[in-house]
């Protein structure tokens, strides 16, 4: 019917190359601390892939995604401490987060944008109160310790390399899932919503249903990230699931650029690594990293504001502009020479 065009083939090749590159990382990176940071990058990526779907494609803002990460984390940790096998506990954590997403989405996605933002903020705060106080389940402000590591039957994933591969395998699955949602009919419906919600409704798009679906998927991915994190780190504390975290995730998606998965990935890697710059770039002193950690909220806030003011299309927009300029520049001397093979 339709031959894959050159850019599709290129994209697929780039994706495969990317996966291969990531798979090789543990062989190249000997520093265990760095490997740990890169694993945390992967966990953030799972959240951001879902949030990118919600914010970047459907244009909906969530200020409560840290709560879904928390639901997945506490749910999975609690159940596996109660003796559930890892895979079952993680699945249950994801299901709980998805259910929470559905519960929040059904009433609130009928609301306009700013009400939705406030509803998700309220949900996040109420869940934080729960994480911080429900001692029987979440351990209260002390949190949970000694969460069993990931395991398949008798085989436990305890090495840094093993955890890296495990988390990044889920990153690939999440990105693939989101990519597919974007390319197919739901994605087109989403872009229509982003353009004009009333217009989309008039064209027969069930906008509320599409938004609810996307919200549930993004909540489930956040829950997955939380579950992965719980078993990887081995302990949980409510401080990881605050509004601050939700804004951090939002900043990553915003910097990536709406409607670009690749941009979100780049932004997440960049922003997650920033406070650890001293262990990545040689020659950067510990003090610089310390300053960056102390000023992390300011940096995120300024990035978020600057993107909204000066880079509405995010890193992806910058990338597209640069690519277009480069193409022009390459095409100029060869004008009329190669031509586009269609």
């Amino acid at each position, binding site marked *: 019917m339709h031959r894959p065009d050159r850019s599709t083939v290129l994209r697929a090749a780039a994706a495969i190359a990317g996966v291969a590159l990531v798979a090789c990382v543990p062989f190249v990176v000997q520093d265990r601390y760095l490997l740990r940071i890169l694993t945390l990058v992967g966990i953030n990526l799972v959240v951001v892939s879902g949030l990118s779907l919600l914010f970047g494609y459907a244009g909906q*803002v969530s200020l409560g995604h840290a709560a879904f990460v928390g639901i997945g984390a506490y749910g999975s940790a609690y159940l596996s401490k109660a003796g559930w096998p890892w895979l079952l506990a993680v699945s249950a954590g994801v299901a709980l987060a998805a259910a929470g997403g559905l519960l929040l989405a059904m009433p609130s996605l009928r609301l306009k944008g700013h009400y939705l933002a*406030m509803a998700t903020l*309220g949900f996040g*705060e109420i869940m934080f109160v729960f994480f911080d106080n429900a001692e029987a389940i979440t351990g209260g402000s002390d949190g949970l310790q000694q969460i069993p590591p990931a395991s398949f039957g008798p085989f436990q994933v305890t090495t840094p390399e093993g955890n890296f591969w495990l988390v990044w395998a889920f990153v690939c699955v999440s990105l693939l899932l989101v990519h597919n949602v974007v390319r197919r009919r739901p994605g087109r419906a989403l872009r229509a919503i982003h353009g004009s919600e009333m217009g989309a409704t008039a064209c027969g798009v069930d906008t509320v249903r599409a938004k609810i679906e996307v919200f549930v998927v993004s909540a489930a991915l956040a829950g997955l990230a939380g579950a992965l994190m719980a078993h990887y780190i081995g302990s949980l504390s409510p401080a990881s699931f605050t509004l601050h975290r939700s*804004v951090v995730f939002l900043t990553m998606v*915003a910097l990536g650029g709406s409607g670009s998965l690749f941009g979100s990935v780049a932004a997440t890697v960049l922003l997650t690594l920033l406070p650890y710059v001293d262990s990545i770039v040689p020659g950067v002193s510990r003090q610089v990293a310390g300053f960056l950690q102390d000023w992390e909220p*300011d940096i995120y806030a300024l990035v*978020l504001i600057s993107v909204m*003011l000066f880079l509405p299309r995010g890193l992806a927009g910058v990338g597209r502009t640069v690519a277009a300029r480069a193409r022009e520049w390459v095409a100029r001397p060869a004008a009329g020479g190669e031509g586009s093979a269609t």
Partner: protein
Amino acid sequence: VDTAGILQFVVAGLKNGSIYALVALGFTIVYASTNVINFAQGEFYMLGGMLGVFAFSSLGLPLGLAVPVAVVATACIGALVEILFVRRRKDGEPMPLIIITVGVSMLLASQARHWFGSDELPLPPFTPGASLSVGGAAIEVQTLWIWGLTIAAVAALTLLYDRTRLGLAMRACMQNREAARLMGIDTAWIVMMSFALAAMLGAIGGVAVTPLTQTRFDIGTGIAIKGFAAAILGGLGNPLAAVAGGLVLGLVESLSIAALSTVAQGSSTYKDAIAIAVLLLVLFLRPQGLFVRATKEKV
């Protein structure tokens, strides 16, 4: 619980409710002129208290001077936020502006931590004196200050809207910003004044409550949620409804704590969840507010 006990909860509810009303008015004023929910509104409340402590303890100003200085300084910060961040987004799209205010909120809280540290900071009561006893309930003198300042602020706001050219221009902007601009009203200036006014109201609440509760760099989000809950309970965009919403929310919160504390011991840990539950219920069941008729969105 006896009558005096209930009366005590009513006093507490009306005290907190006045504070929520001030913050809710801030939301309403900015929303009316920009169609944007200012997520940084709670930070103005925080800054009012923090700058009050700074002016009093670090600069050594007398309290009677430190409080107005803090309020005016916060109003200037509010105007600055509008000039630096909000105004630059020229298209006025609500969603990016909301995200900008989320960033501003995080920035202001973090800056407050850098400047004033992360400790709880105290302020003495505005005037010394023993608590009054009314029907068995104790009313602290500072609570009277909170009520007095709230009434004064609402009265001043009413006068501003009814009797001044600025108020007239603000009301025109509320009804139709584009038409107001075409009539020669400097809408950019109105928006800036709205932010300054909203910051001022938040700061009055924040500095007035600090002698009772102390203050900290991270209290902005909590009060923003409560103030917004109050604003939406009344119906967003209507100043008088915002005040009513604040008082209703304060009473509901206080009386539910009273009811819960008789049922279960130690349930006050969940008291912050009550206002959020009210917020979510109103959002889901009656987003237009209790006192305002619903309108249909048109293309």
